[in-house]
């Protein structure tokens, strides 16, 4: 597989070709694969798909890009879970994609843009997977509020897919303090009356912390 970077022209073409309806469907239905196959040369090993989990539809590069995006999205604690493979959002996303192949092309295009797009399109000069944590966060910060609708769509679409892939995983629930479904003590607490509090707004003043 080709491991070399795509030209800026090719990336812009991918962005232009990004089929808006298809990509937006991604944000809701969530799925896809890539038409821009490329290998994982120079990609940090923590982002490379493990040998026992060959993606169904994502390319190796697409897998790595999605994994990197997810780590940046969810913050350090859950990123550590991804790094140790306790969570594998790219594999989960890949499984969703496999169920909805009509959207595969769109996601692939989106991941190509994120991985290979450089300034002024995206706030970086190197592949997304090659960036440090702070640099990746800068890219996401620009994407989230970009004046270019398609770039905001890219952020929203990937965020939808990543939140789906991460936060539906029981491993994430443990980190978040969610006891899991069917836990009687938790259900009982949720249905208890609220503690009485003595003042309105701005936190507790009645010693009612549990």
């Amino acid at each position, binding site marked *: 597989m080709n491991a070399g970077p795509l030209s800026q022209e090719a990336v812009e073409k991918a962005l232009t070709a990004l089929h808006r*309806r298809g990509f937006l469907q991604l*944000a809701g239905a969530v799925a896809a694969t890539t038409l821009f196959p490329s290998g994982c040369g120079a990609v940090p090993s923590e982002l490379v798909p493990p040998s026992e989990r060959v993606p169904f539809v994502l390319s190796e590069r697409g897998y790595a890009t999605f994994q990197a995006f997810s780590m940046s999205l969810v*913050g350090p604690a859950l990123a550590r879970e991804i790094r140790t493979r306790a969570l594998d959002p790219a594999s989960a996303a890949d499984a969703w994609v496999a169920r909805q192949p009509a959207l595969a092309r769109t996601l692939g295009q989106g991941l190509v843009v994120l991985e290979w797009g450089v300034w002024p399109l995206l706030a970086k000069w190197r592949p997304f997977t090659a960036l440090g944590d702070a640099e990746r966060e800068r890219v996401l910060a620009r994407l989230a509020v970009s004046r270019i609708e398609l770039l905001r769509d890219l952020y929203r679409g990937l965020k939808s897919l990543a*939140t789906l892939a991460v936060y539906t995983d029981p491993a994430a629930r443990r980190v978040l303090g969610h006891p899991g479904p069917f836990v009687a003590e938790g259900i009982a607490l949720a249905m208890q009356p609220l503690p009485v509090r003595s003042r309105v707004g701005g936190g507790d003043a009645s010693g009612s912390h*549990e």
Partner: protein
Amino acid sequence: MTPGDESLRADAIVVGTGAGGGPAATALAEAGLDVLVLESGARHETRDFDGEPATMLPRLMKATTVPDSGMELYAGACVGGSTVVNDALCWRPPPEVLARWRDEYGLRGLEDSDFSRYADAVWQQVHATPTGPGDLSRNARLLERGAQRLGWVGEAMARNVRGCAHLGLCNLGCPTGAKQSALLTWVPRAERAGARVQPRTRVERVLVEAGRVRGVEARRLDAATGQAGDLLRWESPLVVLAAGVLETPALLLRSGIPAGAGLQFHSSVSVTARFPERVYGFYGPTMSYAVTEFSDVHGRQGPGFMLENVTVAPMTTAASLPGFGPALEHAMAALPHLARTVVVLRDETRGRLTIDRQGTAVVSYAPVPHDLERLRLAIRQLARLYLAAGAEEVWLPIEGLAPIRREAELGGLDRVALTPRDFTLLYAVHLFGGANMSATPQTGACDEFGRVWGVRGLYVSDASCLPSNTGANPQITIMANALRIADGSALASGPRRASRRRHSSVSS
């Protein structure tokens, strides 16, 4: 089964098994008709519902996104339709809305008293029950507390449940069978009356000859792959479409019948707040309390939105929070202390559904400025409410806005030049129209009895035939209207069949 097989004929075909299809199939079967019910989704039973979103979402739901606004639309995709994945909320048909349908849309037959008769039957059938204090979760009570401190009107909403276990899984397929969805009510009742339900069968087209319906063409969907099989032809002189707003208009269009205009939704965004006490908002009824202060139905004259508490499920909570990285982590780390409420806006926007070259639905829906401003107002009021209830931090569903800790910080919300894409998650689960009932063929797809203009024997009975949104969770209204239409279509199906009526769906 091959073409020509006797079972490929029926007195009536109902397409869809949700709030529009379930009651229709029941009424027709109980009227003595041989009813075939075709459903594109799979049939999952209560025992299959494991409470895990990763397995339940792809089995039970479908979603699409509106190209021109980025709005996300969700619907059920299984036997029982959206009633399997809704939040079990029950509101009677708002009299103001029925009046508007009569006065503005010329649907003279939609009398409140007549509609009430059907709503009563539905209320009983789905076991709609008042929600008492013991069924209000902390998540709901925080909404109630904030409303009370601000002097706003609110109420616990009726729910169609029997013996709710408060698992917080209403919208993932209730694992205890407490929620009385169509899967547990209308569909079995229709089957007891002889209806044959065929899941995983996608109707491609309605067959029309010389202005009369002749049946449908459909394909079976492979259980493992979802691949469509050979085209099958089912024949029937009576076809009732209830495939949902994302499919019924598309099915009409694929059949060469005008449809798709007049889409209208309840737009939704949610506000999340952190409290010092544990809320455990991921448990308890997924929704149960509504602030009706700003509603414009059921006697209220507000700007037209309701505020309803909603489950703090990790995925949907994360998707609705602004920000990423450490900011998102900070919010999600407080998950046990979070409360969340959704805005249910009675949109003024109208959209349109068309089909692409493959015959797939394409929705166009661009929220008008007035709707965006009312969403802004709703978000502001919700933030105020949560602060009044004692929230330490409130997250607004707009990308780029920092969480607020006091009302004075709401200025950032006012400064945003709001577009649909500024919301973290703008979505709708209450979809209406696309095959509207109307007074004339020029203004809608069917008449006030659901009869498709120009095609005898073809009816629409789901939310796509409703002329507007309802301003309240609509399942009871949809079911009541479906019963009303099915009663009419059963009577219209001929004296031989009418004489076989065993008992009325309304009286049972």
